[in-house]
């Protein structure tokens, strides 16, 4: 049977997620939307880390969807030690947790996690500080490209031309025409930290591999995981995985690893597709294809994908 599935009855190249004794770090009963990519990404990441460390992990969570839907009195969906402090300070709180463990000589691995808003915007200062000190923390950003918790506003991770509540495609404006300016994995790399990776719930094998690798590395680690959001992106709930896969296949979400500031590995794309096929399934880009759309405006996004394809050596550029 195919090794591309999450598991198989022969136990070959299976994922943690396929194991019947997986820890379910994030358990049922949470209040995420139907088809939530972030909930899945979080469980996948933490389960992998949990298995790898025999349960010796502690997690710090930034404010955001993930925090709100997972832990509201009296219901807690976490099966791991978890602390939530504020929106912008998860990285620093994690530094504190790591320092506490270090002072006690406890071998518990520390993970900080948050959405793109809590990471690339309000949490950037603490994140950069944590990187710069090379604190022993794995920071995971679940990137769904906007502030979903507050009702889909633009973040610095929002893709060019995307419609958000604060970048509506009105009049001459084309959604988020501010451009997509902040490449946090690259910023992380510029700190020279031991490990940086991008991942996606469209490739859980890869995601788990990266988390399992990162969790053992001493020092600061950063993994950014593409986590589609049915609500914010406007697509049927069952398409979460499909969209994540399409984003990978068109080159918009390059999967790579970097060590000590240098890209050491990237996942080549077998058959590169056009960004159009990715964008078209989402309401946030509907204005690029509707009756009143400017012709081929989406090709700007194609260029972004092409840049990634060239930069991270994902394959040959097919769609110009």
């Amino acid at each position, binding site marked *: 049977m195919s090794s591309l599935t999450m598991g198989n009855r022969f136990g070959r190249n299976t994922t943690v997620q396929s194991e019947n004794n997986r820890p379910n770090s994030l358990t049922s009963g949470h209040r995420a939307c139907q088809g939530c990519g972030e909930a899945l990404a979080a469980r996948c990441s933490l389960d992998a880390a949990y298995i790898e460390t025999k349960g010796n992990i502690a997690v710090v969570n930034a404010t955001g969807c993930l925090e709100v839907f997972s832990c*509201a009195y009296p219901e807690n969906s976490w099966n791991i*030690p978890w602390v939530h402090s504020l929106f912008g300070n998860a990285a620093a709180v994690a530094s504190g947790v790591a320092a506490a463990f270090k002072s006690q000589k406890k071998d518990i691995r520390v993970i900080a996690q948050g959405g793109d808003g809590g990471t690339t915007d309000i949490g950037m200062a*603490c994140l950069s500080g944590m990187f710069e000190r090379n604190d022993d923390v794995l920071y995971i950003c679940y990137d769904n490209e906007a502030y979903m918790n507050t009702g889909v506003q633009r973040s610095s991770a929002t893709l060019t031309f995307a419609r958000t509540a604060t970048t509506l495609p009105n009049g001459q404006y084309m959604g988020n025409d501010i451009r997509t300016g902040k490449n946090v994995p690259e910023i992380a790399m510029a700190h020279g930290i031991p490990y940086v990776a991008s991942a996606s719930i469209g490739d859980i094998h890869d995601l788990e591999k990266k988390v399992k690798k990162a969790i053992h590395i001493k020092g600061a680690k950063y993994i950014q995981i593409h986590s589609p959001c049915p609500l914010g992106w406007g697509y049927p709930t069952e398409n979460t995985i499909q969209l994540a896969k399409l984003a990978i296949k068109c080159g918009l979400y390059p999967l790579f690893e970097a060590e000590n500031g240098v890209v050491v590995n990237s996942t080549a794309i077998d058959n590169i597709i056009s960004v159009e096929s990715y964008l078209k399934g989402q309401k946030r880009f509907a204005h690029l294809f509707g009756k009143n759309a400017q012709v081929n405006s989406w090709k700007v996004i194609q260029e972004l994908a092409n840049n990634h394809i060239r930069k991270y050596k994902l394959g040959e550029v097919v769609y110009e």
Partner: protein
Amino acid sequence: MLQQLEGSQALAKAIALCRPQVVCAYPITPQTHIVEGIGELVRNGTLKNCEFLNVESEMAAISVAIGSEAAGVRSYTATSSQGLLYMMEAVYNASGLELPIVMTLGNRTIGSPINIWNDHSDAMSVRDAGWLMLFAENNQEAVDLHIQAFKIAESIKCPVMVCVDGFVLTHAYEQVNIPEQNEVDEFLPKYNPHISMDKKHSYAIGAMVSPNDFMEVRYLAHKRQLDALDVISNVREEFLSKFNRNSGGLIRGYNIDGADTVIVAMGSVLGTIKDAVDNLNASGNEKFGVLSIISYRPFPQNEIKKALNQAKRVIVVEKAFALGKGGILSQEIELVLKGLNIDVISIIAGIGGRIITKQMLMECFENPKDKFQFLGLNRATIEKEYQSPCISKVGKE
């Protein structure tokens, strides 16, 4: 051991004696020397098993402390002024999470205009943030309050802010008795955290709480503060018997029995006030007393009322005020004394590091002209500015 030390160095030594396991620091004048001192003690091996983190902001400093306390270790940080405001969100968060962090606030005013000198504006800005707030009168008390603070914080699961006047105390050399390590160890046992983060304690710390339960959470926090009144008193007693020093507690009276006028204040200005009062008592007919408020939060209403109810007049000397309203501490004192027919006078002094001299105080105490006044305010400047076309004449005083 009695030593002649800079206030900050004394505090560094005292904090090290408390064996914090995580100390995080971000430089801001005038708090800087404290964490520099601790950093040195960590590096030279005096303070063992302690992680000293140089962070990138006050927000990170308090956040690191939140993280390390959540993970169950004794944690310390320090800040001043703008730094406190920058960490404000997390200041509330730390108390909401019931994390017994101890933080030194090297009191400094808040800009703009930027000004690095001492007053209590920073402390007053967090008076409702759920922290216990203790004010030190001198460096010996600052040292002693820190040792007590860890004990108080950990016993009631509430963070404690020890307010030490910036420069006036932090940069002043004076003699301080630094206790021995074994004495402190006996007084302040090994930290036994009520929460931590490991496989055995898989808790979620920091849940969202809905309108159905939020008020109860806040009520309990309030109740905890009220309970702290007893704890603070008891810890003072214990400290007294152990170290033979009368430091800390809720309030402290000086010549208040039979005093006509009692001066109420917090922090280092009390020394100058006491000298002023001694001079006045030596020369005049009116009898003056002084009431030090050590525990500003929780606010010891009953104790204050008991201490002041025989006075004819209460003069509150305060180093911060509420713009658009007036004195802050004086308002709280006024409420305590409501119905007792005692005049409460508010003297705003030392704002932004303005000099407070014994002479100025004596004049003011002898003859307080207004119920609300600014000590040493340069009237000429004000008058001149009132002539300026830029200043609205509306509501001229």
